[in-house]
């Protein structure tokens, strides 16, 4: 099972919506995963297989997480989120 992080500035609004999009897209792909939504500073100390966040926050995170960071422009766009998941999966093959 993969562990994903959905990250926004505060960990309560946008990241929650992103978590729902990731869960939907993952379900469609039959990916077994656990998604946690969090704010930027907590994300820095949390282990995960992949991190999904905005371009701006992703740039801030890149130096402080070992996990690959996938920038998402529209947190509610299931297709965009799905593409990012596909990119992640292609690194696992």
């Amino acid at each position, binding site marked *: 099972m993969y562990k994903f992080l959905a990250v926004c*500035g505060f960990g*309560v609004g946008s990241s929650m919506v992103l978590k729902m999009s990731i869960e939907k897209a993952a379900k469609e792909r039959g990916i077994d995963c656990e998604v946690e939504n969090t704010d*930027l500073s907590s994300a820095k100390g949390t282990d995960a297989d992949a991190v999904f966040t*905005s371009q*701006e*926050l992703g740039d801030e995170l890149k130096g402080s997480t070992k996990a690959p960071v996938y920038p998402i422009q*529209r947190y*509610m766009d299931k297709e965009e989120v799905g593409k990012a998941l596909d990119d992640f999966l292609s690194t696992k093959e």
Partner: protein
Amino acid sequence: MLKQYLSEDTMQHKTSVDNWEEAITVAARPLLNKGVIDDSYVEAMIDSVEKNGPYIVLKDYFALPHAQAGTGVNEVGMSLLTLEEPVDLKGNEVKVFLVLAAVDASAHLGALSEVSELLMDDEKFEIVLQGDLEKIRQLIEEGN
């Protein structure tokens, strides 16, 4: 759940606003008037866009302004502003602003998940974009 927050007194429609800062301020006003949030929360929502970028634009034409849970927030609340003319939010056109005020990480989740379900439905999202508050209220009622 959602209809408990979005009712006649927390939903507004306007033809246009001058800029996105004004849009957030106008959208949040009902919550300010009801004492749900303080002035500092409105400033924090605007500062967040300046600092963290426009990720609150969750899909084309829709933004979810919010800031730190429990800071300048007295209780859970949501308020809606629909615009006839889209306003630019750092390179994104936005017609619908939904202000979210959270007190902690969980109390608002039911309502937020309803919002998410509603907006991910293309037909329903189209109705929301049209900005007719009466029709939006009907959608919210149906969702319950």
